[in-house]
């Protein structure tokens, strides 16, 4: 997203505003408050709340319900703590590194500590806006992007559930947020980023968020190894009620994620929401029927997983494609992710415990590529190509995996990644947090 809606706003703005305006700023700038659209701002404030709700409680519950009862609190805590840590890092440097011009691969420090992000009250009546969203206050844009930066590392937790030390998890996520998320976001979304210049399309984060998190997840299950007793002991989800609540809140919140990525309450946002709904439903049914046919029963975990796979796959495409392509993208994602999570994983014998890679990695790749196939110039005003998309995917896959792998190895060699066998047996709730649920 970002770059294109920016053009979109400009297009619209130029119709309404003094010609002078036509040449758009390329970095955060001060504008007069009356240039702010209350309508756009209202929707972006709302979208920010919705995306935060995706992480807490949405994702936390989605994962929490799938683990064993002795690990549920530890799992919820991971997402909650990640949101807190990323918030502080975003303020320190993350936002600045991702969304200020800087170089082709990383932004600068001009916005560190949200330095220069102002609202000058009457009588001055000026405030700063991001060059990526000219009709809303920069504070709102920075908050909206913060919620993306927060949920992305939290997605990774699904891969290493039940066995990572909390301290190591915090260290990994902090490093990952600055060293992996910020650069990829900059390259793909910031106009000066080289993948953005190359024309890679990623409306709401299929590449930056999902492929990126999926690869980090894959790296983590290689580095950590399997859960104790994996394959021998039964490890059924302890309470899918939580998982279904989580999936539902992810779905609802995703409207903020995708339609919010329009940066405005406009026709583009409307389309993004509509195709998100269609792809999600198609994917949920795709997974459900694939499972029903191949395993004999349609499961709650299946339909919920399918919905998430659809949400992931439509994310990069949401502002670019029409209804029918959305249904196709959803169906493909639902069926392919079903295969990835139920067969591929068991075939390749790695323990991606809650399928962070199987759903977000695979689903993200499907979405990124199909965006190139189905992008509609009418809706988005741009062209795309599978090859350019493939380039974005390849870079993210390679960098996301390698960088995550290295960070994890370093932490493992320093403070150690994995809990002791007794702790794992007793369960992380009691051993790491000294708490348990009745």
């Amino acid at each position, binding site marked *: 997203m970002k770059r294109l809606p920016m053009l979109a706003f400009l297009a619209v703005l130029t119709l309404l505003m003094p010609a002078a305006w036509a040449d758009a700023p390329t970095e955060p700038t001060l504008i007069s408050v009356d240039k702010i659209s209350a309508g756009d701002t209202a929707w972006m404030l709302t979208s920010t709340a919705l995306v935060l709700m995706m992480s807490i409680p949405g994702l936390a519950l989605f994962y929490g319900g799938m683990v064993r009862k002795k690990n549920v609190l530890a799992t919820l805590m991971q997402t909650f703590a990640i949101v807190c840590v990323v918030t502080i890092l975003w303020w320190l440097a993350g936002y600045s590194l991702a969304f200020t011009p800087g170089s082709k691969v990383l932004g600068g420090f001009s916005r560190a500590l949200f330095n220069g992000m102002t609202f000058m009250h009457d009588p001055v009546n000026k405030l700063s806006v991001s060059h990526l969203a000219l009709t809303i206050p920069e504070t709102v844009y920075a908050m909206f992007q913060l919620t993306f930066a927060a949920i992305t590392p939290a997605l990774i937790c699904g891969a290493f559930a039940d066995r990572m030390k909390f301290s190591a998890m915090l260290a990994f996520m902090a490093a990952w947020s600055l060293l992996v998320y910020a650069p990829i976001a900059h390259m793909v979304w910031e106009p000066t980023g080289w993948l953005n210049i190359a024309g890679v399309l990623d409306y709401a984060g299929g590449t930056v968020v999902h492929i990126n998190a999926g690869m980090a997840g894959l790296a983590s299950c290689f580095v950590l190894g399997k859960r104790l007793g994996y394959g021998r002991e*039964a490890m*059924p989800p302890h309470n899918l009620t939580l998982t279904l609540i989580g999936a539902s809140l992810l779905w609802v919140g995703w409207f903020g994620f995708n339609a919010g990525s329009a940066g405005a309450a406009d026709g583009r946002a409307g389309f993004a929401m509509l195709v998100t709904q269609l792809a999600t439903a198609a994917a949920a049914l795709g997974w459900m029927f694939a499972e029903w046919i191949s*395993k004999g029963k349609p*499961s709650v*975990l299946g339909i919920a997983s399918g919905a998430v796979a659809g949400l992931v796959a439509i994310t990069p495409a949401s502002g670019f494609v029409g209804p029918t392509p959305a249904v196709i993208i959803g169906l493909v994602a639902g069926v392919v992710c079903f295969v990835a*999570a*139920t067969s591929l*994983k068991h075939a390749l014998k790695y323990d991606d415990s809650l399928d962070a890679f199987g759903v977000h990695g695979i689903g993200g790749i499907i979405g990124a590529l199909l965006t190139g196939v189905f992008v509609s110039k009418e809706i988005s005003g741009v062209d795309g190509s599978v090859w350019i998309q493939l380039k974005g995917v390849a870079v993210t896959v390679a960098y996301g995996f390698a960088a995550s792998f290295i960070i994890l190895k370093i932490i493992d060699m320093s403070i150690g990644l994995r809990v002791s066998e007794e702790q794992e047996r007793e369960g992380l709730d009691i051993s790491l947090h000294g708490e348990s649920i009745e």
Partner: protein
Amino acid sequence: MKLVTAIIKPFKLDEVRKAVSDVGVQGVTVTEVRGFGRQRGHTEIYRGAEYAIEFVPKTKIEIAVENGLLDQVIEAIIKSARTGKVGDGKIFVFDLVQVVRIRTGERDASAI
């Protein structure tokens, strides 16, 4: 005195309780248990991982009775708990060396 223990199908609990009350039993203790036996469990599949749940939910009831009442109680349980299908359960009888009612300190017969 004897302690009669029966492992029954959970949905039969109310019937059995009534049946034994009818023959004069005044107290029963119930425990939720899981049983393994001829009756098979089921399989659950989560994202392709199949788990055979071998244990079936059962309910265990314990009744302390005077010897005189033993046979009637056993009959009452059999009648009320039987469905004729595999998994109806078992009755185990033990000798009771002593019984005490905590509230009163009464012993044996009068304590039951």
